[in-house]
């Protein structure tokens, strides 16, 4: 038997807190990493005469492949966090709606704690 009433309201608020506050804030950090860095913006830094080093753009191909992979894993982490946060908020609202006391506690905490 799961929580009901005020206890369920507290549980719902925790999901809301994770989905509305914690995960979006964390996701923003990953988004900022991913969007704050662009491998292609460093391309010109590698360019030189083709007789020098590893050719016209040197190690850019190998470096940018790794850098783009980094960009992808950071963006994916941010996306997963944000979408899961949405699901947690949906859960919080869904469960709170099943119980009047839970809804009251849930609403009170959202008002007071944000």
């Amino acid at each position, binding site marked *: 038997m799961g929580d009901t009433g005020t206890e369920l309201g507290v549980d719902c608020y925790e999901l809301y807190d994770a989905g509305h506050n914690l995960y979006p804030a964390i996701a923003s950090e990953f988004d900022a990493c991913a969007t704050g860095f662009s491998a292609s913006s*460093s391309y010109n*830094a590698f360019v030189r005469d083709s007789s020098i*080093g590893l050719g016209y753009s040197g*190690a850019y*191909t190998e470096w940018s492949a790794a850098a783009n992979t980094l960009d992808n894993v950071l963006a994916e982490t941010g996306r997963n966090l944000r979408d899961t946060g949405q699901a947690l908020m949906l859960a919080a609202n869904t469960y709170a709606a099943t119980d009047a006391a839970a809804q009251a506690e849930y609403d009170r905490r959202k008002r007071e704690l944000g």
Partner: protein
Amino acid sequence: MSFEELSAHAQEIVEKAMEWDLERMGYMKVGDNEWMPRSSYGGRAGQYPGYGGSTMTQSEVDADMAEVSGRYDDVPGLFDAFSSLPDPASFDAGIDDLTAALGKLSQGSGGEDPTNGSPTPANTILDGMDTSQDYLARWTGIAAAQFKENFVDTFESITTNQFLLTSYIKGALEAEKSLWDAARRNIDEIAEDTITALEEMGDCGKNEWSMAFSVAGAVVALVAVPFTAGGSLVAAATFAGVGGALSIGGAAVGNMEDAPELDMSGESPEAVIGNMREAITKLKDEISKAEQKIADKMTELQGIVDGHRELFVAPRPNLADSGPGDIREDMGVPR
């Protein structure tokens, strides 16, 4: 001297070498790049039209000039290739962006950047994941439990691996920056040493000099650091990156290679410039070897991420795709 004057240095080398040769062939300088045969020098004395009684014809003079300049006409081209070397400062923007990313990915008690040993203060926003761990522990649904187990519980180790990955990619840029800083200094030193050697050919004593190729030590091998497997500290893959000598400085992080040296000597322009050509070839070779290290490390790193993607990003949680129709089943009940 400076790198920006490389073309002027190349021209000066050609002029000094030609000057030495032409003076010994009986010519004297009468203006900028203008030479005339002396009137009474060796077999060239006589009636040269227009100057001091030399017997040389204009075509003979032209042939001498062509022969001498032909000995060195490759010199400007040898330096031209270096005049467009990458600017070390042009890597700074990328390094700064990746340094900022490190600050966002540092968690717990803070991370240490393996490319330079710098401590990186923890980003306390990431602590929110610990808070949510407690929240989710009470929910019994399979999707909720899977999310906690596969995403929340592994968050710290995966973020640590992302931090290391970011650092190694930044380290490669720092290595490139150091490489081109050293390459610019080395090509400038070759030009400067060559000019000095040309000036000292007639002096007493042996005309000897050496060239140390610091470019070889610009890309530093770092100590190996393991990527951790989710939840445990078991090393799932180990990687030793590269960094730049400029950013590492004297820190005993890696293994600085001794700069290879080339000993040179010469008492004639042909010998001095022959040494210069050898030094430039050696410099190109050392640049290629240093940059190959960077490329190889990035390929190795890419292989590790491709082969162990689960170490760098958690699989998309089922919960992320829950909708109104399945959210109750996915979350279960709170205990």
